[in-house]
Each structure stands twice: as C-alpha cells, then as structure tokens.
C-alpha cells in the first residue's frame, strides 16, 4: 500500500515510517498540515495517517479540507491521551478511525489494514456473512459451521460478526473493544480473551481446525481456509 504519514513529531514519524516500510508498504512523510494536505490531494495514497495537532493546519482541518475536495482516501487520526471530545470531532470531521498515543505499532498496522480494504456492501445477501465453512446470518442471528448450528450468546455473536466482516485481517483487542462493546477505554479484565475463548470452544466443538487464529502480540483473525 502507499501510505502518507503527516506527523510533526520526528520520533513518532520515524517510528511509524520505519515500521510500515519494513511491512512492505511505500511510505511518504510530511511534517506539517499544509504540506500534508498538498501531498494528500496529489492523490494515489491508499491510506493517510494524520496527527490531530499539527503546525500550520491541524489534522482535523486537513481531513475536512480533503473531504470537502471529494477525496475519500481512508484517514487514521492520531491523538494524545484524554480526548473524548477530540475523538468525536475527528470522526465527525471525516476521519475513518482514531488511535490514541502512545500506541503499539501492531495496533496501527492492524487498523490501517482494516481501513484500506473496506469490503463493499453486497446486494441481497448482505446480511449473510460467509468465511470458509462458517455462515452468519445477521437477520436471523444464527450461525452455522459446515451446516451445523452453533448457539451463541449475543456478545459472542457480535464478536464473531465483527471478525467475519474483516476476514483475513487482524483485529486487535482495542478494535474489538471499540466495535463489539463500544468501549473507548481499556478494561483491566480480559473480557475480549474470555469471550473469545468461549466463542472459540463453541465454534470448534466437533471440528479439528481452529476457526479463529490468534496472532501473537497483535490480535485475532478469521482466515477461513
């Protein structure tokens, strides 16, 4: 992917650029908002990482300007801790996702992957999610694996649906907390792990292959092979 990083802090910029470069992405960098907007409108990027606070033109204004120009390139916004209002403003301003500093690189990478390849909603059976031998019906709220009915608790169902909406993509713990539980904080208890292990044991009952893959140090993924 071609990724643009707009970040004024040189340490963060170098850390992100290096990491994404090593992961095989083409990376362009910018130190301030005006130049960042100029580069972004030049186009050709698959995703843009923007810091909320920037000299010249701040991250929020940059995203707004980009969206006003009809550019729909996915934007991931970075912000310092403690910004409940920032988060809402960022998303309303047109950012697609939001990440609070300090963050682990794996978190950033997972979110960028999820952003860059958003699945287009399909036609009539958009309520049916199919990954490998698992079929999830969002209307009937039923799950089948290889034709066999699996009974899930509501949270487990939501968790599986989120994983199946993003097949072959790593979903991190925080992403799952945000999207399945609507939590914007990190609980001390391992609620994601607990629910995932319950979901996994229900899905895997009677099968040899593990339906959900654990990606060490990053998160979870449904591969569906």
């Amino acid at each position, binding site marked *: 992917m071609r990724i643009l990083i707009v970040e004024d802090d040189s340490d963060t910029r170098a850390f992100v650029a290096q990491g994404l470069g090593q992961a095989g992405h083409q990376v362009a960098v910018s130190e301030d908002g005006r130049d960042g907007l100029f580069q972004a409108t030049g186009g050709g990027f698959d995703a843009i990482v923007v810091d909320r606070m920037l000299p010249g033109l701040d991250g929020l204004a940059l995203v707004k300007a980009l969206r006003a120009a009809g550019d729909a390139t996915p934007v991931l916004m970075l912000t310092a*801790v*403690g910004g409940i209002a920032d988060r809402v403003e960022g998303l309303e301003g047109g950012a697609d996702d939001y990440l609070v500093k300090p963050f682990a690189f794996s978190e950033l990478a997972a979110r960028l992957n999820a952003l860059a390849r958003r699945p287009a909603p399909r036609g009539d059976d958009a309520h049916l999610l199919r990954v490998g031998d698992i079929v999830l019906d969002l209307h009937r709220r039923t799950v089948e694996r290889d034709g066999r009915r699996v009974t899930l*608790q509501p949270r487990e169902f939501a968790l599986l649906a989120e994983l199946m909406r993003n097949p072959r993509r790593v979903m991190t713990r925080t992403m799952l907390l945000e999207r399945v539980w*609507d*939590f*914007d904080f990190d609980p*001390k*208890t391992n*609620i994601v792990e607990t629910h995932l292990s*319950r979901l996994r044991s229900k899905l895997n009952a009677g099968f040899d292959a593990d339906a959900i893959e654990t990606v060490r140090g990053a998160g979870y993924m449904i591969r569906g092979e």
Partner: protein
Amino acid sequence: MLTRLWRSTFGIVVLVALAFSAATLAIGAVAYEVTHEALEEQLDHRVAVETRALVAEAREGGLAAVSEAIHLREDARNEASLDYLLVDRAGRPIAATITPLTPVEPGYQEHFGFRRGNVTGVGQALATPLPGGMLVVVADRRDLAAIDRTLASLFATALAAMLALGIGAAVLVGWLTRRRLSRIDATAQAIIAGDLTQRVPRDGSDSEFDRLAATLNRMLDRIAALMDNLRQVSTDVAHDLRTPLTRLCNQLDRAATGDKDAIEAARRQADDLLEIFAALLRIAEVEGLAERRALGAVDLSALLEDMAETYRPDFEAAGHTLTIDVMPGLHIEGDRRLLAQALSNLLENTLRHTPAGTAAKLSAKVSHDAIEVTLEDNGPGVPPVDAKRLFQRFARAEASRTTDGHGLGLALVRAIAVGHGGDALLSRSEWAFGVTIRLPR
C-alpha cells in the same frame, strides 16, 4: 472625565442634589409668579373700586365733586391710601396728590411713574375720562415690590441651602463608600499578593456592603477549597508516581547490566505509568466535561444487561456469581461510553477485591427523582476509616495496598456520576457492601 465623575458615588449624589435644586428653583419661580400676580390683581381691584366711587361722585356733582372727594381723602391719608390725579381737558391738574412722571393714557397702566413731594414712586394706575377731564387713581407698588423681594430672597436661601447640603452629602457618601470599598480592596490586594487566608471584614449589619463581603468571602472559601484540592492532587500524583518511577529506574539499571527480563519488566512498568496518566487525564477530562458533554439517549437497562453479560464469564471463572435485578425500560440522557466505563470499573473492583465464592448483584431501580444503579456484594467490604476517602484519587483501602490497581477507579466512577448531574456513594446493607451511582431521571 465628566462621565467618569457621574459614575462615582460622589457624582451620583451631586447629580441628585442638582436635581433637587432645580426642583426648588422651579417651585420658587412658580410660587413667586403666582403671588406676584395675585397681589397685582388686588391692587387693580382696589383702584377699580375707588374709580367707580369717584365716577359716581362726578355723575352727581361734576369735576368739582370729584375734586372735593380727593381733598377729603387726602386729608384722611394713611400709609395704605391711594393717590389721585384729576386733570382738565388740557391736562392741567385740578386736584392732585401726586405729579405724574409718565404721560397719562386712558385705561390701566402697570408702571405709572409719579412724584409725591420729594419722593418718586411707581404705581398701578387706572385713568378714566370724565366729562371735562380725566381721573387717574394710583396704587403705590412699594408694598408689592417689598413682598417680591422677600419671596425672592427666601427662595434663594432655600436653593443655597439645598446645594450646600447636596454637595456636603455627596462628599460624605463618597467618602463612606470609598472607606467601605477600600477594605474589600485591601483584602483583594492581599490575596493577589499570595495570602489566600485573607477575608473581607464584616460588621454584621446585613447592609449591602456586608452582604457583598459575605458573598466575596464565600467565593474565596470556594477558591481556597479548590486550590487545596489541586494541591492535594498534585502532591498525591507526585507521591504515587514516585514508587513506580523508582521501580522503573531500578529495572533499567538491571537491564543495563544485561538482565533481559528487566527490559520486559521495565516495559510493563512504563505501560503501568501510562495507564495511571491516562486514568488521571480521563478523570480531569470528565470533570471538565460536565457542561459541554454531548448527551444522548441511553437505554440504561440494556446497558446494564450488556455489562452483566460481558462480565459474567469472568465472574464465573473467578468462582463468583453475578446476578442482575434491573427494572426494564430505564432511559436517561447521558454518555453511553462513560457510563459503561463507570460500570466496568465497579465490576472490576468487585472481581479484584473479593475472595472466590462472593455473590454480587447489579441492580437498578427508580427512587423518586433519581435512578439508582447499585453493584453490591457479600464480600468483606471496606473498613469505615477507608470508606470516607474511597472516591478520592489514589485512595486505596489499606487491605488492598498489595493488590493490583492505582486507586483511580472509584474517583473516575464518581467523576462520571457527577458529570451526569448525579453522585456516587457507598451503600451498606446487612449482608452486602456496594457502591451506588445515583443519576437524575
């Protein structure tokens, strides 16, 4: 400059004094004019009556009779008597008590100059033509002028007294006001200089100055309390961060000597510190958010069911039970994520601080004007000594010093409850110990 003067107390009182003086002046002028006119009319009336009497004499006995009457009246003359002038057609005097200084015209004459002996005077005159001559009856205006003068000097004195009193009052009121305000000013100056213990002295009179002093003192008390709180928080933060930072330094020292495990430990320690900062910032943010938080409709019953479902597996894994007793259909205006975080903190506290086998109950009920959300358990609870400060930052019950946590969870719970216009409090019953979040309906 002038507008500034009128804004001072002195200026206002001067203005009032000037207004009263103007009123005095107006009343004086009207009274003077009315009195003057009334007296003039009285003179005219006397002259008219006398003229009628003399014209009647003329009708009976001609000019000679009139002349005779004038002589008779002149003989019986006193201070208040009228003056007469009878002239023939050629204007020669037939009988006269005065010499005219003004040409004689028929009809009323307001200021008729005359001389009587060596004295000149001005009078109110009525000249009436008679067959063969003209009769002039004159009333001296001397008394009228005297009364006019008396009236004028009376009003002038009143005006002067009014002005003097007004200016005097202005000076006095200005001085008194400045003196009262200077006490408040002195207190404010002392506080600016750094002495926050200063208060405005009160005299107990319950006057507006006294009430202002009381209000200012209450404001200063509030500011002082906030400052104390801030100082306490900074001290606590400094104190509670020293331990993990020292540990971090030690671990880094060990890592420098080649201890691989120490790097991992230092990493965890740094994460821990970041977590403390995040929690502190979150509390501060929620506290500051009260006014401008974007509120939405929150289905509280559904949220509580969700939270119970989310945490029940962990409760069961820890050998606890979690039951739920929530009235259906409870809705409030609020921030769903913040409420979820408050509930999450409570549920995790129970998980962390109670022994296996503890029964916990999450309940919500309406109690007149508020919705009460309670999480209680039959665990050991906290001793009353700790209970008082449980909702403060870095407050941890003595018994839990050794367990995980930073003592920020309940402070955040309370900040969130207060941010929703409610409060968080401890609840104790016979079998259970818990925390209740009261939210306004």
